């Protein structure tokens, strides 16, 4: 092991870091299991607390929440048939029938074990693949980096949107927003309308708080008023330990889920829900008893749960090595790192290798704590499902204000946050995904910078993007992702 690996392990294993990871895991489990609360919302609420923390502690807390949230989502899916997070949707298919049959405990136990194994597998992928990928990425030049970022944007538009046009529009709106403020190459003020507050641009974390939290608040209120609010979970769950026969049965589904989830997690925009459903489908096809699926079988819980937790480690790979977020949560993590003056990307491994490895090992600890807390405090966590929304929702609203204010101690950011909340609502109303917009806001400045630097370097010759093999490869992938979207009917989805 290199000294950086050992330093990273030591930093992640400090008592303060471990405590932060454990608290994060607990909060993640709570946030994940409460229907109507997403992991993104949970992280946004916690985010302002991390501004003053040491970066290692701050990222340990957020990673704990990320990993815990993924597992927590399955609890309400199994007990209430309402997935706490979209990633747990596939878990409900077999989890809830098991709970109805009186085997809620075993279903939860299976979900916990599968999540743990999936998370651990993706940690290994992260540990071994991330440094190698970072080394390769260090050799990229401006045209390659532009094409890579362009690919990141197009693939997320292809995956995240039901309609390709709306996905692309969402990304372009994000690119429009990042042009507000100083231009990244020459420092010229653009679209500031003489406002001093606009000079620094729109911080994407402010935008993110509004885009995710405000529509969430409104949706929860609408659900409450229209009588769609969730009921209470059953208190008696029975034994949580799966039988030996069940443990044997989940070995292959967990393997399928772990591999599928880790691989799909690397692709920006795929996310937990798609990975969970794909691994569920594969497992069903590979099963000798496919007819039992959907009626409450442990394999149907193990596959999606291992997959959605494996996505977390997979999504951290492009975030850590290329600076490309795989999902909204990793986009927030990038923001959290930037606040501490750390830019995720290949240089992170070269310049702050100790920190990069501390992130990887914090992810490992998050999975360990997740397992321990979930098993030890399962009954307490289930009681928390009954948290009164009347207290929770106004608290979230106030924390949105605090979070956006604390970023730069400026009320202007609070108004920006609210404006983005309205934009988020409008986008939901139009069935337009917010994730491409968010990714465009994260990557937009770099995209413009690399584009312009590449053109300056080539004396304005655009063929530079096609003569570099790496750049050409990513441009071809971008074209393929758009073509795939059109081929699968997303281009005209609205006509259906």
């Amino acid at each position, binding site marked *: 092991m290199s000294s950086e690996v050992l330093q990273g392990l030591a930093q992640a294993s400090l008592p303060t870091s471990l405590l932060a990871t454990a608290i994060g895991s607990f909060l993640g489990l709570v946030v994940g299991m409460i229907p109507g609360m997403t992991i993104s919302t949970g992280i946004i609420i916690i985010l*302002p*607390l991390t*501004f*003053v923390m040491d970066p290692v502690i701050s990222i340990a807390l957020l990673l704990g929440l990320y990993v815990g949230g993924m597992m927590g989502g399955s609890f309400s899916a199994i007990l209430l048939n309402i997935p706490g997070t979209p990633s747990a949707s596939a878990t409900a298919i077999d989890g809830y029938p098991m709970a109805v049959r009186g085997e809620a405990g075993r279903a939860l136990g299976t979900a916990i074990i599968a999540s743990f194994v999936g998370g651990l597998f993706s940690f290994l992928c992260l540990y071994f693949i991330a440094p190698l990928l970072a080394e390769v990425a260090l050799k990229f030049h401006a045209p390659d980096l532009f094409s890579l970022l362009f690919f990141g944007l197009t693939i997320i538009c292809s995956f995240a949107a039901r309609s390709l*046009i*709306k996905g*692309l*529009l969402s990304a*372009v*709106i994000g*690119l*429009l927003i990042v*042009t507000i403020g100083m*231009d990244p*190459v*020459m420092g*010229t003020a*653009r*679209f500031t309308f003489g406002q001093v507050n606009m000079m620094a641009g729109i911080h994407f974390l402010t935008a993110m708080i509004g885009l995710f939290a*405000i529509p969430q*608040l*409104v949706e929860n*209120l*609408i659900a409450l*008023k*229209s009588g769609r609010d969730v009921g209470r979970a059953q208190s008696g769950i029975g034994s949580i330990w799966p039988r030996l026969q069940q443990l044997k049965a989940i070995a292959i589904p967990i393997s399928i889920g772990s591999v599928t989830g880790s691989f799909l997690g690397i692709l920006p925009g795929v996310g937990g829900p798609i990975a969970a459903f794909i691994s569920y489908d594969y497992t069903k096809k590979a099963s000798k008893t496919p007819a039992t699926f959907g009626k409450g079988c442990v394999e149907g819980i193990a596959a999606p749960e291992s997959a959605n937790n494996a996505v977390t480690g997979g999504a951290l790979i492009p975030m850590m090595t290329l600076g490309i977020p795989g999902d909204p949560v990793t986009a927030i993590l990038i923001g959290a790192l930037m606040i501490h003056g750390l830019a995720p990307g290949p240089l992170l491994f070269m310049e702050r290798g100790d920190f990069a490895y501390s992130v990887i090992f914090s992810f490992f600890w998050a999975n360990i704590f997740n397992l321990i807390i979930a098993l030890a405090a399962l009954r307490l966590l289930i009681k928390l499902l009954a948290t*009164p*929304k*009347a*207290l929770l*929702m*106004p*608290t979230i*609203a*106030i*924390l949105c*204000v*605090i979070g956006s*204010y*604390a970023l730069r*101690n400026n*009320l202007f950011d*609070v*108004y920006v946050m*609210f404006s983005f*909340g*309205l934009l988020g*609502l409008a986008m939901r*109303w*139009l069935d337009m995904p917010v994730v491409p917009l968010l990714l465009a806001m994260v990557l937009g400045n770099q995209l*413009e910078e690399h*584009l*312009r630097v590449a*053109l*300056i370097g080539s*004396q*304005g010759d655009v063929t530079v993007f096609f003569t570099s093999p790496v750049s050409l490869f990513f441009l071809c992938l971008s074209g393929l992702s758009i073509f795939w979207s059109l081929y699968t009917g997303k281009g*005209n989805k*609205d*006509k259906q």
Partner: protein
Amino acid sequence: MKRRNIAAACVLLAIAVGYGYQTALLPARTLPNTPDPSFFPWINTILLGVLSFALLIQAVLWSNDERVMEAQQASVPAIVALGLFLLYLVAIPFFGFVLSSVPFFALFMVLHNERRKLWLLIGAVGIPIFLYNLFKHIFGVSLPRGIFLGLLG
């Protein structure tokens, strides 16, 4: 969805025109072989224009005209909540974080069907004060005190 898409496409086309106009006003740089600060915004303008037009065409030719009744019925509490939030944000610079948060929190709780007076009192007063002190003393973030409280010193 058809009407919504047409409306969205028209709004986005208008934004593309406005953005393009503002882009045209950006200062030009005369350095040789250097893309202007307006270079990237022009790309955005074209992309936004083309995609908005594509959305318009798609909406006119293919979208169906389904109506989402549920969203319309439930829009009143949503509008009330957003109005309340806006009022809260307007009040903060004048009354400060704590004084503005108390009535906002209480009204938001009422909006979520909470009627118990003790709970309302504990939630609306206790949570904002707790958060204010948490951020001030533990995290070193001073939340706005407001013009009126500021005048009192």
